[in-house]
């Protein structure tokens, strides 16, 4: 249970990781971590060479092939394992690129204002106006051979505009905050104001923008692979789906070829969204589940904590005198005699 009351006593350092305490976020982090691990060790633990043909054509899942085989007898499970790396790599790299760009463009535009703002926001608007997926399709077909790196670059370079816009708007509102003005009045230089006063306050937006872009990048990459735009030299989940779809896996009843990759994407996406929830709630104290949302009153009834109707833990029937829940008032008898003795020292008015 996290209550804001805990915050005040928590030392400063621990704050940055507080969002992990959120259950949703923690689940998300664990799953994402699992996929990252797979991305690293996937190719080593894969039971087969993902591209190797075998005599088991289009076999349903079995102990030899956990997720069955393709029309060429390739092992789907190995393909998923090997494919994780590309997905995770592209997702995170593209997310990082887009985030850096959006921060640079958005914050600079927002903070500097004037001509710099006009041209930078025009630039991001142009990128916003151009439809992202078709643009990515065009750019990737520009590249002779699209490696994962290239795809990550393309996705990253084309998908920063939205975040830049959000960041700009936020920076605009931060720029006029008193503490930024105060920092300037103290004599901070422009870059210090941007990096040390404004950016830390944007951390949450940047982080959730990053997570959002990672989701977008993963989806884009998989979509691109699925519609056959990018090269399929490196295995990723989209490639698996591309082959499955090209070979009509679903119509031929080879669900095992189609389902695992899709589920893997959905799980990774959900995990990332969960992390995002965590960040969101971390940022906005109001979203932070303020402990329990339901509480028990003294009579055992459950009431919901909500605005406008403060819960009452204990009521006293009208005739009776309410007692303090903490500590009874000190009975007069217990007052040490010294107190009475000093009565005369009443202060002058």
């Amino acid at each position, binding site marked *: 249970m996290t209550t804001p009351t805990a915050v*005040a006593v928590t030392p400063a350092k621990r704050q940055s990781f507080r969002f992990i305490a959120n259950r949703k976020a923690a689940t998300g982090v664990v799953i994402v971590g699992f996929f990252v691990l797979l991305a690293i060790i996937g190719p080593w633990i894969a039971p087969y060479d993902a591209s190797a043909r075998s005599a088991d054509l289009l076999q349903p899942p079995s102990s030899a092939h956990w997720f069955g085989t393709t029309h060429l007898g390739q092992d789907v499970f190995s393909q998923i394992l090997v494919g994780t790396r590309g997905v995770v790599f592209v997702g995170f790299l593209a997310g990082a690129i887009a985030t850096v760009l959006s921060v640079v463009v958005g914050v600079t535009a927002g903070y500097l204002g004037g001509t710099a703002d006009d041209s930078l926001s025009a630039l991001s608007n142009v990128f916003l106006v151009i439809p992202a997926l078709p643009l990515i399709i065009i750019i990737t077909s520009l590249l002779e051979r699209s490696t994962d790196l290239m795809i990550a670059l393309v996705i990253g370079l084309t998908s920063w505009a939205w975040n830049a816009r959000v960041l700009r708007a936020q920076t605009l509102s931060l720029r006029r905050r*008193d*503490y930024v003005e105060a920092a*300037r*009045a103290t*004599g901070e230089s422009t870059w210090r104001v941007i990096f040390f006063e404004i950016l*830390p306050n944007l951390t949450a937006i940047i982080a959730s923008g990053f997570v959002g872009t990672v989701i977008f990048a993963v989806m884009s990459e998989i979509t691109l692979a699925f519609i056959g735009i990018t090269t399929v030299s490196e295995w990723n989940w989209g490639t698996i789906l591309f082959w499955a779809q090209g070979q009509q896996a679903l119509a031929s009843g080879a669900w095992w070829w189609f389902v695992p990759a899709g589920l893997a994407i959905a799980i990774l996406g959900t995990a990332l969204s969960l992390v995002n929830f965590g960040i969101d709630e971390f940022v906005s104290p109001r979203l932070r589940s303020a402990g329990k949302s339901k509480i028990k009153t003294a009579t055992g009834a459950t009431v919901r904590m909500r605005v406008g109707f403060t819960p009452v833990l204990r009521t006293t029937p009208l005739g009776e005198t309410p007692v303090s829940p903490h500590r009874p008032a000190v009975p007069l008898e217990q007052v040490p005699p010294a107190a009475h003795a000093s009565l005369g020292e009443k202060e002058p008015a």
Partner: protein
Amino acid sequence: MTLSDTSAARTGEAVLAAEGLTKHFPVRRGLADLLARRSRVVHAVDDVTLTLRRGRVTALVGESGSGKSTVARLLSQLYSRTSGDIRLHGRISTVRGGRAFRAYARRVQMIFQDPFASLNPVHTIRYHLTRALRIHGNGGRSRAELEQALHALLTRVSLTPPERYLDKFPHELSGGQRQRVAIARALGADPEVLLADEPVSMLDVSIRLGVLNLLRDLKERLHLAILYITHDIASARYFADETLVMYAGRMVEGGDSETVTQRPAHPYTRLLIESAPDPDTIQGSAQAAAEHTPEDRAGGEPPSLIAPPTGCRFHPRCPAVMPRCSVELPPRLTVGDADGHWAACWLYAPDEVGK
């Protein structure tokens, strides 16, 4: 802290002066304006002239929205001014960011009106103060020196023991404590001028008193020139040497604090002083409070600053309004009851005084 070289002899010397300071904020315009080809501005500050002197506290009082904070921000050069000059030690100073601004900031520091907004929520008190010291080279050369300087700062604003506050975040402090951190930060720059914008508005009277005593102490010990902006006229009387009154973007009266608060000359100042609650004159009766109400004589709303009244801006509400008030802008006119007491009111024009 190298303020010891100041000698009392130089007390009273003008440090920061503003002449004809004017600030107009452009107003976002609607379609109607476009069609009418109007260009509208908020006349937040018009033609303000004031001088801050060494070792003296100048109070600035006035209605809410009369432009007091804007004057402070103009003086700290956070806002560019529409017109007018700011003189630092007699030299006209216009800085827009960069090194020059920093040099200016070192001498002129500002305490913001809202202590909840002016500290960055993500930084500790230590960070805020360290920056203030470092930027202006007061942080010493070693860690130990820095630590010592930080302690000295916090001790000066009575946040003791300093260790208890250094590593806290702003939200962990009470309003009064934040206010004092803001003051400490301003002091960290070792300035000559302190622009304190309502530094005590949100505090209960006891904490308020503590802060004001600190300011007075600073004035006396370090010979700071202080601009003290407040709604609490009584505190201006107690802490300021000089009091200026603003109304609708203009200075309407100025002079020695005691004179201005006890013998207000301008009708607005009178209204202000009469409006201020005073338990010593009327005691403890809601009934009585309702009876003698100064606004009966000067009712009405504060004027629009977009289309301010012509002539004297107070004339629509003034109980002593004369025909010329609505056409001619009154200049600063000497009141004559005390040295340096002036009012921008036609009542004190030589030709009127005779009547």
